[in-house]
C-alpha cells in the first residue's frame, strides 16, 4: 500500500501518533477528547481570578435573577452575583478538593498498604482497622466533622479521605503480597538488600500503575462527594463558591431560573466524565491484559 491512499480511520490514528505517547494511538479519540476537555476545565479554573469579570461574592440587589446580559454572560443569582464568575471560581475549590483528597488518600494508603503487605505481623491488625474505617459513610463523617470544626475545606478533604484510604490500602497490599513472592524480590533478599530498599525500590514501583488508575477515580468521586456535601449544607462554607453550593443555593429558584443548577451541574458532569474516561484509558494503557480482552 502506498503512503498517500491511507484510509480515513488510519489518518486519525496517525494524527494521534503525532503525540507519540506509546499506546495513545491505540486507545482512540475518546480519551483524547476527554483529555482536552479536562485540560480546558483545569486551565480555565486556574486562571479564574483573572478570567472572572466580577467578584463572585459581590452582591447587586438591583440585578437579582437576571438573564444573560453582555456584562453577565450567564446571568445573575438570587443575590445578584455574577453566575459566570461564580461557576469559574467554584471549579477551583471543587478541583482542589478532588485532587487534594486523591493525593492525601493515595499517599497515606500507599504507606499503610506497603507496611501491611510486607510485614506479616502487622497485617491482620492493620487490615481490621481498615475494615472498620471502611464502614464509616463519608457523608455522615463530614456532617460530624463540620459540626465539630465548622465548615472548612480541610474538614471536607478529611471526610472524603478517611473512607477512601482503606480502598487504597487493600489495593497496595494485594500488589505487594503478590510481588513479594517474585523470585527477583527473594534474590534481592539473598543479595543482602535492606528492608527499606526492597520495599521502596523493588515493591513500590509495582503499585504505581494501579495507584494512578485508582487515583483518577478518587478524584472523580471526591469532586462528586464535595458537591453532595455542599448541596446538603455540610460542606465548605457558603462564602466560598463551589459547584456544589452554587447548585444548593439555586435549588429554590429552579423553576424560575434552571440555569442556576444547569451550568455548575454541566461543568461537574463534564469534569467527572472526562476524569473517568481518562482513568479507563490509563488502566487500558497500564494493564495490557485488560486491553486485550476489550479488543
Amino acid at each position: 500500500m502506498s503512503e498517500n491512499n491511507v484510509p480515513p480511520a488510519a489518518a486519525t490514528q496517525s494524527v494521534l501518533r503525532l503525540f507519540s505517547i506509546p499506546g495513545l494511538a491505540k486507545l482512540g479519540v475518546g480519551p483524547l477528547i476527554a483529555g482536552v476537555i479536562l485540560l480546558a476545565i483545569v486551565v480555565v479554573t486556574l486562571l479564574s481570578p483573572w478570567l472572572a469579570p466580577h467578584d463572585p461574592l459581590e452582591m447587586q440587589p438591583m440585578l437579582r435573577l437576571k438573564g444573560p446580559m453582555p456584562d453577565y454572560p450567564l446571568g445573575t443569582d438570587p443575590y445578584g452575583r455574577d453566575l459566570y464568575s461564580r461557576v469559574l471560581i467554584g471549579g477551583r475549590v471543587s478541583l482542589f478538593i478532588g485532587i487534594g483528597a486523591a493525593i492525601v488518600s493515595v499517599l497515606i494508603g500507599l504507606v499503610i498498604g506497603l507496611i501491611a503487605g510486607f510485614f506479616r505481623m502487622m497485617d491482620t491488625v492493620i487490615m481490621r482497622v481498615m475494615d472498620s474505617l471502611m464502614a464509616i459513610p463519608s457523608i455522615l463523617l463530614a456532617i460530624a466533622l463540620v459540626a465539630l470544626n465548622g465548615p472548612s475545606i480541610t474538614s471536607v478533604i478529611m471526610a472524603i479521605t478517611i473512607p477512601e484510604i482503606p480502598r487504597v490500602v487493600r489495593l497496595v497490599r494485594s500488589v505487594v503480597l503478590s510481588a513479594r513472592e517474585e523470585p527477583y524480590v527473594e534474590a534481592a533478599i539473598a543479595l543482602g538488600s535492606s528492608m527499606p530498599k526492597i520495599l521502596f525500590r523493588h515493591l513500590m514501583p509495582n503499585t504505581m500503575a494501579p495507584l494512578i488508575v485508582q487515583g483518577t477515580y478518587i478524584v472523580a468521586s471526591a469532586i462528586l462527594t464535595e458537591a453532595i456535601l455542599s448541596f446538603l449544607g455540610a460542606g465548605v462554607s457558603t462564602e466560598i463558591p463551589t459547584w456544589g453550593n452554587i447548585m444548593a443555593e439555586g435549588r429554590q429558584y429552579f423553576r424560575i431560573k434552571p440555569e442556576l443548577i444547569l451550568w455548575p451541574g454541566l461543568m461537574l458532569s463534564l469534569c467527572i466524565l472526562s476524569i473517568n474516561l481518562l482513568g479507563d484509558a490509563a488502566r487500558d494503557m497500564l494493564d495490557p491484559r485488560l486491553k486485550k480482552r476489550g479488543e
Partner: protein
Amino acid sequence: MLFKSRNFDEAKTVLRIEDLVVSLPPAAKVKPVLNGISLNIRQGETVCLVGESGSGKSVTSLAVMGLLPKNALMVTGGSITLSDTDLLAQSAGAMQDIRARRVAMIFQEPMTALNPVLRVGDQIEEVLESHTKLPADERRRRVIDIMEQVHLPDVERIYRSYPHQLSGGQRQRIMIAMALVLEPELLIADEPTTALDVTTQKQILSLIAELQEKHGTAVLFITHDMGVVAEIADTVYVMNHGDMVESAPIETLLSNPQEDYSRKLLAAVPSLTPRVPRPAPEGAPVLKVRRLNKIYGGGGLFVRRPDTHAAKEVSFDVARGRTLGIVGESGSGKSTVARCIMRLIEPTNGTIRLRDANIAHLSRKELKPHRKHLQVVFQDPFRSLNPRWTVGRSLIEGPVNYGQSPKQALKRAAELMEIVGLPRDSLDRYPHQFSGGQRQRIAIARAVAMQPDVLVADEAVSALDVSVQAQVLELLDDLQEKLGITIVFITHDLRVAAQICDDVLVMQRGEVVEHGPAGEVLGNPQHAYTRSLIEAAPGRSWDFANFRALGAA
C-alpha cells in the same frame, strides 16, 4: 533399547499436512512461522514432533485444530487433510464439530484446561451432551466407562470431584478421558507430561499407548523431551524455526540422524551416566546441615489442621568446590530445604553451618554478613530479574549493599558479563531484551558478583531448552572450576543431576531416602524409591549423545 517398530505401510493415512505455510499478517515482512512443512500420520501411529521453543511445534497443532489466533497468524499455503476432509476449507461451525468428534487435544497443564468450578464427571459428560443425542443414563454410562478405561480409582467418587481435589496425574487422566470419549481419529497431545513427575509421566505415557492400541487412534505427540520420544514414538519429525528439518522412524533417527540440527539436538540430551568422579575434597565442609526440620503449622487461632512436615531430619555436608544434587519429585521437600539454606524461610529446628557459623535461626539483621557467602539462582529466568531495572543495576545491587562503590561494581559487572558469555553493553539493557538462557546467565552473574562460597541453584535449568541447558550447565561447571564455588543443585531431572553432581541426595515426602556419591546412587540405587525414579526416567537405556544404546560401546 526396545523401540516401537511397527509397520504402518498398510495403515490408512489419518492426517496429511502438505507444504503448510503459516505467516504473520502481511504487513510484517518476516519469515513465515511455518515454512512449508509436510507431515503424515497413519492410523494407530504415534508421531512425535520435536524441537526447541519457538520451532513451530505448537503452531502446527493449532493449525490442525483450526485454532490459530485470528488476525495474528494465518495459513497462507499448503493443505491439511484429515482422512479425506480438507480442514482448511471448513467453516468455523464445522471445525467445532470436527474438533470434538474427530480430532481431540490434550494440553500441558491440566489444571488450567479444566474448569475449576465444575465437577470433572460433568465436564466429560458435557462433551457427550453437546455432540451426541444420547439419553442421560447412556451418557453417564459412557463417562463411567471411559473413566475406568483411563484407570482412575474409585470412579464414582472422582466423578463427583472438582479438579483441585485431584492430583496432577489424575487430572491429566480426566483430560485424556474427555479427549477420547468420542473416539476421535486423531489425538493431539501438546507436552502432556511436561508438568508431571517422572513416575506419573511414565503412567500417563503407557496409558496413552494402551488406549491408542485399543481404539486405533493416531497420535500427534508434541514434546521437547527426547527421552519421551524414545519411549513412545513410531516416527519422529524434527522442527527448527518453522522448518521441518528431518523425519524418520524413531530408531533410524536416534541411531543415524542425517541433519546437523538433529545431531545437535540429540547430542545436547544429558546422559544418565554419572560424571567421572572428581578427587575427594580436602578440608572441612563449607556447608553443614544437621537434622533440619521445617514444619508448616496447621490452621490458625480457631481452626486446627494437621501440620505439614515439609522437611524431616535432613542432614548433609558439602565440601568446597563440590556439587550436591538434591533430587526428588514435586512435594518431596527439596525446595523447602533450599529455601531454608538460603534463609528465605526459617527452619523449625536443626542447624545450618555456613563456614562454621550457624545461620539457622539468625534474625534479618544478624544474617546480613552471612548473605554474601550464599547466593541463589532460581528456576524461572523471566521472573528472577526485576523487569524495571537495567541488567547493570541488578548486577551491582549486591556488591553495593556490601559497601562497594557503584563505579567499581559496574566495572566488575562488565567483566562478569564476559565471563558468562554476554556482551559488555548488555548492562544498559533491560531483562525483556534477552532470551531465557541469556537471562539465566545474567542471574548467575548476579549471584557470582557476590563471590559466594555456596550457590544454591533451584531448578536453575529446568525451564530451558536442552541445548541452552547444556550451555548453562557448562557455565556453572566452569565457574565452579575457576572460583571454587560449592553448588547445591536442586532438580527433579535425574539426567541433569547425573551431569553436574558429585553427590546426590534423594528426597521423598520430606525425608532423605538415599545419599551418596552420584555414581553409587544413580548406578546402584539401594532404596526402592530411587530405583523407581531411575526406572521412570524416559529413554534411560539410550545414549542420545553417542547415537547408540547404552552399554553397546
